């Protein structure tokens, strides 16, 4: 087990270093960093001084080492556009994206699992067919269209929910939250449904097919033969066993929720990291782009690592194959 953990952590570090190299090359080779920090009036001597201060004259390998060292201390340099430290800009926006991602994941789980269980238990009922159709729509409609559709229905037509922005935010000092006010929760509803719909349909389909498979197994038949109530059979025996893959998928999908937040945040003008990243792409604000890339990659790798380790804990076959290799 220890060997498996160490090997897995080693792989994760390798991936992170690769991404760091890409981030670094972005920063170093795309456009001239000094060009962005100076105006036309800057003299040549001043430019050279800036180059020297930034350490752009050192060997590339030393620059890369410095970049990694700085990144480890959350120092990503200064934004070209805002002239503020990138770490501060990201720090300000981090809570907004995290709360949106959390709310979406919760929506996906708490809507997806019951729908999947129902569709698995009664695959031929009309409601199960409705769920299947809805899930087909959820998969084939692009995210941004779902967002626009929701805005059109709930904000424009019925005026029930706000169509953009993050309102009712309470500042806790180290974190800003929208969960404490009614306004904040209301403005969170549409974006989190938009962002979580794809994952919800994924979970629903997964739970449905797992349920149908588990219900055919011998131990479920045996539980029925023992005269247990359908409730006990369906939920205590069957559902429990479908949840392991659900946890894995949810974990892995958390990463793509954070990435797809770029689209949702744009549709709803949600002041998160994704919106900032998009603006950085449009204005070629390289420090923000490379910091965002590193941050998202770290989140991805961490989530993958945790899911893998949890899986090895739950499923002994993976541990054993790790030993054999």
């Amino acid at each position: 087990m220890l060997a498996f953990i160490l090997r897995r952590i080693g792989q994760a570090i390798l991936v992170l270093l690769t991404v760091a190299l890409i981030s670094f090359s972005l920063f170093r080779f795309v456009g001239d960093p000094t060009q962005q920090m100076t105006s036309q009036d800057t003299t040549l001597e001043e430019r050279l001084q800036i180059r020297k201060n930034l350490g752009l004259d050192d060997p590339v390998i030393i620059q890369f080492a410095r970049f990694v060292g700085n990144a480890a201390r959350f120092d990503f340099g200064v934004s070209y556009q805002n002239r503020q430290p990138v770490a501060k800009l990201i720090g300000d926006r981090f809570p907004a994206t995290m709360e949106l991602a959390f709310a979406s994941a919760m929506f996906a789980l708490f809507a997806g699992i019951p729908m999947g269980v129902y569709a698995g238990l009664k695959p031929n009922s009309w409601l199960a067919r409705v769920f299947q159709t809805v899930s087909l729509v959820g998969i084939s409609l692009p995210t941004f269209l779902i967002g626009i559709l929701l805005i059109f229905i709930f904000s424009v037509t019925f005026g029930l929910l706000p169509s953009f922005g993050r309102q009712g935010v309470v500042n806790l000092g180290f974190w800003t939250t929208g969960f404490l006010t009614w306004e904040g929760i209301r403005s969170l509803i549409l974006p989190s449904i938009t962002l979580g719909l794809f994952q919800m349909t994924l979970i629903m389909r997964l739970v449905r097919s797992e349920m149908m498979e588990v219900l055919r197994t011998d131990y479920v038949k045996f539980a029925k033969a023992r005269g247990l109530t359908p409730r006990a059979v369906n939920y205590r025996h069957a559902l429990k066993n479908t949840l392991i893959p659900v946890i894995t998928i949810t974990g892995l999908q958390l990463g793509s929720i954070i990435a797809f937040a770029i689209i949702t945040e744009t549709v709803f003008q949600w002041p998160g990291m994704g919106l900032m990243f998009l603006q950085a792409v449009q204005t070629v604000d390289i420090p923000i782009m490379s910091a965002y890339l590193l941050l998202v990659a770290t989140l991805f790798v961490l989530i993958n690592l945790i899911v893998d380790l949890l899986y090895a804990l739950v499923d002994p076959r993976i541990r054993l194959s790790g030993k054999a290799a």
Partner: protein
Amino acid sequence: MSHRAAAPQPRLKLTWKERVAIWRDSDLWLSFKASPVAIMSTAVTLLIVIAAIFADVLAPQDAFDPVALNLLDGFAHPMERGAGSNMLFVMGSDEQGRDIFSALFYGTRLSLLVGVASVIFSMVLGIGLGLLAGYLGGKIEMLIMRVADIQLSFPAILIALLIFGVARGLIPPQQYETTAVFVIIIAIGLSNWAQYARTVRASTLVERNKEYVQAARLMGISGFGIMARHVLPNVMGPVLVIATINLALAIIEEATLSFLGVGLPITQPSLGTLIRSGQKFLLSGEWWILFFPAMMLVILALAINLLGDWLRDALNPKLR
């Protein structure tokens, strides 16, 4: 001087008629005939493709030539005649008097063009790298597959955005508009190659040890020749399925990028750009500017997706 009569050479070239006969006898055609969904989605896709190709002839208005527009026609409702030119706007017009129906032809054409080109780009790249990895093995295989692993763990849209950002940094601003189409094709293409590489590598590993490959090797055919002429045709089935489904994904990806404002500019609008420009009128009630391009996008993506689903089932030997 040879006394042996020349043995009749097996004909390698088939006539057109024979090809049709073989095709009509194939499992694929039988499965196609039996599936209404496949027939419907093919018909819809073909119709859209034809409309896109002949956009110049079929569209009632040359929608992206400023000279053809009449500002007095602005914001005509669907099925209304414009106040300026008295032209009938089947799907309404936008603020500049542009016919939405005509704009759809041109937008669909660009969406399809970018989709097809980027799928071809990622297919060629992915197949090449996958064949190399599967056939050569060793360090090259490890390197290619590790890169593919890393890339597959990131969503394609993120990678495409990044590539777009890099391109923006490298291309001078005056050339943004002329290069936009190529940038977006490369960005989407580069973000999707890994899946092909994985599939092709897996099939190549299986094919590599089969007797026909060994026979080809004994005949002295070069490694490249074996890969291109013998292994490649045998791994194309799954690749075609992925390509079809990826075409729908690429079209949606392009629309998403254009919607986010990092895709095609308004002077060369795709469906995504049209949706983006229609979004600001949604709150003021001019719903048609957004609605029709969005519907077109959904229908196009859905038809291609259904086609891909059918193709996957039809080519899956387990389901026969």
